[in-house]
């Protein structure tokens, strides 16, 4: 909190059906203003259909020390990857 401003993470969706992607952050006093600032900073030049803003402090994240137990066990399990399916012709944004 700096001068009554909180930090918000910004996620934008470029087309319907695509995931919202993290693009950066803005400072704002409250959610509506954060949304407007996100629009001005991140949505004015590109195609955007939806914006989310999330208070940064609401994000609970892994720490660098969590790497091993969290992520390494997936390395030897290729069957967890959806590599053995054929995507039907004409399906987009999967």
């Amino acid at each position, binding site marked *: 909190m700096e001068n009554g*401003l909180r930090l918000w993470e910004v996620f934008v969706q470029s087309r319907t059906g695509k995931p919202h992607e993290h693009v950066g952050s803005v*400072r704002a006093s409250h959610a509506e*203003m954060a949304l*407007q*600032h996100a*629009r*001005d900073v991140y949505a*004015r030049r590109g195609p955007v259909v939806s914006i989310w803003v999330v208070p940064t402090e609401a994000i609970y994240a892994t720490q660098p020390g969590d790497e091993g137990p969290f992520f390494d066990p997936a390395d030897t399990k290729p069957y967890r990857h959806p590599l053995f399916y054929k995507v039907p012709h004409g399906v987009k944004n999967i």
Partner: protein
Amino acid sequence: MNLETLDTAIRPALFEYLLRLGDDALILGHRLSEWCGHGPYLEEDIALANLALDCLGHAEALLTLAGQVEGEGRTADDLAFLRDAYEFRNAQMVELPRGDFAFTIVRQFLFATYACLLYEALQQSVFEPLAGIAAKALKEMRYHLRHSREWIRCLGDGTEESHRRTQNALDELWMYTGELFEVDDTLQTLTQAHIAPDMTALYSAWNAQVMTTLQEATLTVPENPPYMATGGRRGHHTEHLGYLLAEMQFLQRAYPGAKW
């Protein structure tokens, strides 16, 4: 009705009207642009510069059309940079110095509420090029209204200082609101021709919308304003416009025809 089918008799009034609309956008845009690099924080600095650019875009479209209606070969740049203060037709409200942030926001809110209603109505104008510009500008003005209205609520219903500054700005600006709805011969001619909307209906809608937001923001309008400013539409301006033009027009005046 378009430029080719336009009645010659109505051209002078329409040129005058387009100057009013275009000059409002141009001068307000310039005042907003003065915030660039001076905003209260980075994100709002960007927001204000965006609003300024929107206004300049509207001004360019409207003044280009004005030049075409006039038929003397003047471009938007000619009209913006080579006219003197007495030839400008903007309402005095938009030429007042930017003041503090509250002043800029209150002006933007009062003007954007008016401009949204005006452009909404102008979409029905029988003069097609103007209806087209109005439809495009309306989308941007709706955002100006959303942004400034949000700030009005924050500032009015915020701290003791923000309330005081916002109320002061409103007290100062209120006497400049009457001019936006003035009806004279020019406007009457265009209203009868269904080119411009009826300002009486527009004023009622504006008043209702403004009052709702001000109430939410715990702000009050001066009950008996001693005086309503007038004259901008006839080229009578406050002293501030001259200084604004001196800065805005300097380059074209000092180096005529300069391009980059």
